[in-house]
């Protein structure tokens, strides 16, 4: 905000303040350089128990679906419950698809909100933010690293749901050639390819939310606040998306294309929603990335 802190910011001026040889082992690793910062960010992220707890909770969703369908005495009827649920008994691969559909409105945004909201505010709350800025890489790179960390978590979260779904399906149901929405049947190898495509689609879908979380995280030193704000916003966006009166707004909501990954289950593959979604998420990434840049580079780092 004020001039003097900006000038003192090492990220901008490139000046290196004498490294504080604090007791934090994490900071020691990070002093190594730009790439070391990224490596350490990812290591820290995936060493945290919280990250594993989030991933485990996500993995439980498709497993629960599979077990519930397996244990129930009658097959699910078409048109009731989440889409594709009736297909699960015929082909276990649909456990992964149903798992994703169930996770997308709440569980995935929830976990991504927790990780993205924690990025900067979490470090500030722990008092480690200024140590991170000691590294010569600077504030911009720290923002980029934090965003990459959140994006990698999006990928990990999506892949977790898909993998857990496929494994649960494999264990409890027959697995064979996959029937697409168009009624065509594709081989097992191609269906794994489609599953990967879907995982990619959902990962891209969550990038906009990650950028929003990153921006909120630069606004506060209370990580819970940034997490809650991100999650609330994702719910609000979905509520707005369901109101027909706001139809003009719908294509602008970051959650608008979230469930359109079903277009990847058509024959031939319809990439138009993939493109539209990527463009939209890219827009959110740029806008909130720029906001986070403005905020973080002008911010007084006190902790």
């Amino acid at each position: 905000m004020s001039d003097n802190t900006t000038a003192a910011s090492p990220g901008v001026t490139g000046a290196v303040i004498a490294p504080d040889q604090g007791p934090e082992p994490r900071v020691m690793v990070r002093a190594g350089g730009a790439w070391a910062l990224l490596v350490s960010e990812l290591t820290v992220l995936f060493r945290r128990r919280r990250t594993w707890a989030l991933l485990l909770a996500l993995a439980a969703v498709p497993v629960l679906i599979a077990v519930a369908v397996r244990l129930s005495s009658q097959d699910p009827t078409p048109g009731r419950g989440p889409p594709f649920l009736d297909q699960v008994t015929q082909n276990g691969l649909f456990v992964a698809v149903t798992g994703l559909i169930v996770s997308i409105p709440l569980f995935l945004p929830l976990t991504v909100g927790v990780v993205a909201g924690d990025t900067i505010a979490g470090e500030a709350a722990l008092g480690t933010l200024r140590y991170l800025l000691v590294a010569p890489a600077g504030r911009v790179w720290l923002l980029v690293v934090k965003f990459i960390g959140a994006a990698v978590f999006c990928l990990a979260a999506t892949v977790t749901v898909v993998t857990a779904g496929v494994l649960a399906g494999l264990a409890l149901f027959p697995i064979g050639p996959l029937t697409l929405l168009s009624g065509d049947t594709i081989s097992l190898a191609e269906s794994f390819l489609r599953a990967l495509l879907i995982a990619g689609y959902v990962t891209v879908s969550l990038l906009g939310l990650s950028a929003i979380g990153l921006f909120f995280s630069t606004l506060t030193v209370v990580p819970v606040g940034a997490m809650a704000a991100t999650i609330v916003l994702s719910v609000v966006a979905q509520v707005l998306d369901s109101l027909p009166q706001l139809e003009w707004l719908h294509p602008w909501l970051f959650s608008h294309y979230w469930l359109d990954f079903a277009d990847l289950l058509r024959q031939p593959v319809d990439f138009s929603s993939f493109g539209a979604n990527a463009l939209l998420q890219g827009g959110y990434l740029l806008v909130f990335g720029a906001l986070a840049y403005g905020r973080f580079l002008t911010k007084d780092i006190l902790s």
Partner: protein
Amino acid sequence: MSRTWVKWMPAVAVPAVIAVGVLAVPLQAGAATDLPEKTPREVLELVAGSDVDTFSGTLEQSSDLGLPEIPSTGDAQAGEFADALELLTGDHTVRVYRNGADQSRVQVQDTMSERNLIQNGSDLWLYDSADNTATHLTLPDAAGAPTSPEKAYTPGELADTFLAEVTPTTIVSLGENTEVAGRGAYELVLTPNTTDTLVDSVTIAVDAESGLPLGVQVTAQDAAEPAISVAFTSLSLDAPSADLFAFTPPASATVTEETLPDTTGHADKTRPDVESSGVTVVGTGWDAVVLMPADASGAGLAELTASPLYSQLTEAVDGGRAVSTALMSVLVTDDGRVLAGSVPVERLQAVAAE
């Protein structure tokens, strides 16, 4: 101070650039395209002379008929009636593939499901992924069907015939050239020559290169936006992949075999059947009204009025119940006659009273 300002620059610049981009793209698409000048007759000739029969493309359909929204997860009772209404009233993305006269595939994309219609030679498949059902029909041999008499005309003659037929009731003109699915197109505008109809104008976009109609818009009286709009959003004139048309229903699907009533040779008789049932058309052109007497509608009508949707959709008017949409009105009189037309309800009531 200036440094702070510089750092907030991207946060201002990025949305600005996006806004400019968003505003510029439709402007560019809407800009009049440079096409050789043509008269409406020449454009009609272009359409009549079009010989495109291989293409693949995506159609966007949107309707704003002023009908109440049909709940998509309707109860089973609503059944096929609701299905048909949904196709009319909702917005849809449809992919169309065509390879010659005997191979085509239409895919209606719904969220999380899809409806397919596949024609491959004499095989016709309908597949609905929402309830995983497939229906198979065998079409009568196409070779036996009589070739349409239009084949004998040249495109120019066809254009003349069409013009001569529509001119008394319709003004045919050309709108500004547009761009549909990235292709330059002429815009034929048909305007009714009467004010006693709900239709304000019908606009047909015609591909300047191939003469293929690329889009149709029907605008109602006093409406700014078209009530029905169907247009390609992407189009390729290359032949689609052959395996698209080789459809085998999935093993898990419920397959029903249906046979078409044998109509070969009876084609001419269907018309008298309709006429003997007493269906009459009052008036000609845009303000024509179709009148179905009570005994002709019979069981079909009883089934329809029993549907819970019927009372939701219709409103009580003098002499019966009516549905009025932006483009069409239907009046079911108390004595069981059905009147329909692209006219205001008042005109239907007037015809019913005659």
